[in-house]
């Protein structure tokens, strides 16, 4: 049974349609990545799944008993709010201390329980948010640009952590990412979104789809080739070097 099933979902803000007739399913234990240009409705899709926005049309069906962990984009904690990491993880209530320690360990930051939330670095903060998402032992983890603001090393180790979490807990992951090389190497399935689902499939299939190339150009084809070491894309050699530099950016 699918964890989440989205049927013909349309979302509007006022008169502006941000998502139109999106249908997709998330199966247990798979890693699905959503890519798409700015304003393509990626965040709206995740927010519709957690119930933060009401569908204009269509529906989002959660499998019965499916628990969702959510890591939001760009969370800003006001400096005036004094709160420790463990208190933050306890909210809105009913979480035992051993569960907090376990979640922090899973997220790779076992020593932060007593730290003040406003004192954390960007990387630590993202991991605390991951710990918060893991605390309810979710069947599905939603990540919205979880590595925004991290440097390349930070984001690489963050995604490794996600992969480890998936291996240990078997939860499915649905994430939004701008980092196409990570997407291409770590996902089972890629969904290319631009107000509607342009194309979807395995990373290789999506990367070669004309809709995807129209949105991202052929440079990202290079990214796939670079990280998978499949040098089969059709450029002459001068372009090739150029593509590699671009992909590594």
């Amino acid at each position: 049974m699918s964890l989440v099933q989205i049927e013909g979902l349309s979302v509007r803000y006022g008169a502006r349609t941000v998502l139109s007739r999106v249908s997709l399913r998330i199966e247990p234990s798979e890693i699905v990545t959503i890519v798409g240009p700015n304003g393509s409705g990626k965040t709206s899709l995740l927010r519709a799944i957690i119930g933060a926005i009401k569908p204009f049309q269509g529906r989002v069906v959660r499998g019965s008993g499916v628990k969702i962990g959510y890591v939001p984009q760009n969370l800003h904690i006001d400096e005036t709010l004094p709160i420790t990491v463990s208190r933050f993880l306890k909210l809105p209530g009913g979480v035992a201390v051993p569960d907090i320690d376990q979640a922090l360990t899973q997220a790779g930051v076992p020593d932060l329980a007593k730290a003040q939330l406003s004192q954390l670095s960007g990387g630590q903060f993202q991991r605390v948010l991951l710990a918060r998402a893991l605390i309810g032992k979710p069947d599905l983890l939603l990540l919205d640009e979880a590595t925004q603001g991290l440097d390349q090393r930070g984001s690489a180790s963050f995604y490794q952590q996600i992969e480890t979490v998936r291996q240990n807990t078997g939860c499915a992951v649905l994430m939004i990412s701008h980092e196409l090389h990570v997407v291409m190497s770590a996902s089972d399935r890629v969904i290319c979104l631009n107000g509607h689902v342009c194309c979807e499939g395995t990373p290789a299939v999506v990367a070669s789809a004309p809709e995807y190339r129209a949105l991202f150009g052929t440079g990202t084809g290079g990214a796939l080739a670079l990280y998978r070491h499949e040098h089969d894309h059709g450029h002459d050699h001068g372009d090739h070097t150029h593509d590699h530099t671009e992909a590594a950016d």
Partner: protein
Amino acid sequence: MLDDFMVRAALAGIGVAFAAAPLGCFVVWRRMAYFGDATAHAAILGVALSLAFSMSIFVGTMTVALLMALVVSALSGRGYAMDTLLGVLAHSALAFGLVAVSFISGVRIDLMAYLFGDILAVSRGDLSVIWGGAAVVVALIGWRWSALLTSTLNEDLAYASGINPKREQLVLTIALAITVAVAIKVVGVLLIAAMLIIPAAAARPFSRTPEGMAVAAGLIGMLSAIVGLRAAYILDTPAGPSIVCVAAVTFLATSVLGNFRHER
């Protein structure tokens, strides 16, 4: 004991500080300071309407404050920046209120009493309204505490935990309207926001938990009320502003000490 006007005044000040502390923390955390100001300023219109229709001042101010807060919530995010919107609404409400009061003939109104409070004239009846209102505010915020904190941290995290942040916002709005209505007699509409924000801000440098900050804000607020009243009595100064002055000095002291501790 309640026969002494100074005792009644002190109890009134403590009651307001009690309600203002937890609410003030949320006002600070959510950056709603101007929102509190707007709601309070609207209350003067409530005073005018209460006098015109011979209603209780408490009901009139609370109704107008609540309406104001709801209007602001509804209009936010529709083309104007929040501070512009609040600036327009707060000062218009104050101006219309002052004009409306001038139309009311036959009743002699001491406008200053509503603008700056008249804590020394608090009656037993006022006292029960203040303490009743304060108890409702504290109970309301205590009841919703965890949900309010979660939605203050992040609205989407709240949704993901099954909390509706819009409902929590409404809880705060109602609490704010009640606080404005009970505080009007004590510090007046112009200084209500000060009682919300200053004790909470003064408590911040020494707090490590949200609950600690709310309790510390409460203590600072109550202390300010008692010391401010005493100072007003001795120096023959207006009572409401004196209370706010004491709170402001406390804020200065904790900020300086907090900085000092931070640098060591």
